[in-house]
């Protein structure tokens, strides 16, 4: 059979995507598609791993058996999601070690939201409720992604994340029913997390370099703006129903559009935080590096042992 031209392959590839077929690991794909996916999936994986830290800080202090168990389970899920996503990225030809290296040297990016501090217990509830709601809206969209392994990983992650939302909400409701101090703790956390959460879905598409290609190849199926609007419409009534305020006086329901209006976050802040200059970037990476360095001997030993066992088996 004669070699097909790049154009012919690309046309076939795009036709498959437009028919709603999934692209699988062994299939032909344009380099740009592969690169875009590796970038997105590895960023997502890094976000899960770094995302363990802000909440993980509260594991030793979680109040009561149920909260303690739930929080450990949740932070564990994040490690599990990281593991799953690194696996999905590996199917595209990049090793976990390479990706880890990029994270630890500050070369790779990850979600802005994990670079903010978690000074009170209420932050745990708010992350589960607000941040994970925003994450699920994004991930539900990604579960439609054209790349099979990513879409399937997302489907599973979505189930687990919706469980996180319930737990986060449950923790917030407990505080909402509690003492005035407990309620104040929640409001303070909402105030601090509101804008960082809005930023999570990414800059307006006009400012996003990667968005257009990702949309064209159905790596993602909705724009950043659509995802953000969906989040706002979903969460604002919930926040108000519990008697808390959204820290944005201009956040009102617009009858003409059937959407809530909201004040745009500071996009310059997002750029800074994503590029390494947020309130906790240094602290987060230092914690990851420490774990990585201190665990080096374990990884080496396991690799050596694995090799020895294989030699024995082969002999």
């Amino acid at each position, binding site marked *: 059979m004669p070699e097909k031209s790049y154009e012919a392959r690309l046309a076939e590839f795009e036709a498959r995507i437009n028919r709603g077929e999934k692209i699988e690991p062994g299939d032909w794909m344009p380099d740009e598609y592969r690169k875009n996916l590796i970038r997105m999936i590895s960023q997502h994986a890094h976000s899960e*791993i770094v995302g*363990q*830290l802000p909440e*993980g800080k*509260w*594991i*030793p*202090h*979680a*109040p*009561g*058996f149920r*909260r*303690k*168990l739930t929080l*450990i*389970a949740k*932070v*564990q899920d994040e*490690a*599990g999601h*990281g*593991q799953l996503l*690194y696996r999905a990225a590996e199917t595209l030809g990049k090793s976990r070690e390479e990706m880890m290296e990029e994270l630890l040297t500050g070369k790779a990016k990850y979600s802005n939201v994990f670079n903010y501090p978690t000074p009170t*217990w209420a932050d745990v509830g708010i992350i589960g409720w607000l941040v994970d709601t925003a994450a699920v809206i994004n991930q539900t969209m990604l579960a439609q992604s054209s790349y099979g392994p990513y879409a399937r990983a997302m489907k599973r992650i979505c189930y687990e994340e919706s469980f996180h939302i319930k737990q986060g909400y449950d*923790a917030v409701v*407990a*505080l909402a*029913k*509690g*003492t005035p*101090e*407990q309620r104040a703790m929640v409001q303070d956390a909402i105030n601090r997390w509101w804008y960082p959460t809005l930023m999570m879905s990414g800059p307006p598409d006009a400012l996003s370099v990667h968005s257009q290609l990702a949309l064209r190849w159905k790596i993602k199926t909705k724009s950043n703006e659509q995802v953000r609007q969906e989040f706002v419409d979903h969460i604002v009534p919930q926040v108000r129903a519990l008697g808390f305020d959204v820290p944005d006086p201009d956040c009102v329901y617009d009858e003409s559009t059937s959407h809530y209006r909201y004040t745009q976050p500071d996009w310059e802040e997002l750029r800074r935080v994503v590029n390494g200059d947020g309130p906790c970037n240094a602290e987060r990476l230092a*914690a990851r590096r*420490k*774990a990585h360095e*201190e*665990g*080096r*001997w*374990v*990884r*080496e*030993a*396991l690799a*050596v*042992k694995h090799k*020895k066992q294989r030699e024995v088996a082969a002999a």
Partner: protein
Amino acid sequence: MSLTIPSPIPLEHFKRFILSMADDELVLGHRDSEWTGHAPILEEDIAFSNIAQDEIGHALVWYTMYEELGGPSPDEMGFLREWNDFLCCHFVTYPRGDFAYTVVRQYLYDVAEQVRLRALLSSSVEALRSVAEKLIREESYHLLHSQSLVERLGDATPESHDRMQRAVTEAFPQALGIFEELEGESSLIESGVFVGNTALKSDWLKEVVPVLRKASLHVPVQLDAENVRVLAAADEGGRRGRHLEHLKQLVEDMQQVYRLAPQSQW
């Protein structure tokens, strides 16, 4: 809910026995959870988070039984009790150390728990039998995991061997403290609640010594004929509520938020 135990069993001693198991599980589970987000590889991060939940879940089972015997609720026991009222052994209270110490501690503890639960499968108290039947199923996973880590890290590289050996030297005498005699233990043995700590320790030694040795790790014991003679002093005191500062710090951390509003929901 209430639980009654057959009358010849001294209730107070029985309750202390339950509590000593509950406190061991909670404190070790707390220590294990300190690896969540910080383990050497993702798979171990997940593993220790999982083990932590299991151990804390087991603590909850024992505290629930304690409540059914007329004690306070599990949350009150874990989150409002004074640190010197805990009855855990010193072993579980030590800081997590490096990963080698964590692995060795987990392995030594897993075998002890396995041996203990196996013995409880034939306890005279039905409630203990049924708890043991449930927990042993979960616990067996821990043992398979920690034992395979001991076997792999014990002699893989010079560094891993050094670290594991240091961990065994440190942890072995501490682990012997798991089997510190309980108050009123003889009455618990007589009434068939369990076989007693001396018997458990001997079963434990028979299992851990060969595994550690096979992993090229030196253990301070002497084998004469069928008997294992221990050449180290056990680190005891915990079962009588005599604790080290590590536990004080741990309990303070654990209760920090709960105590902000002890009457409130969290």
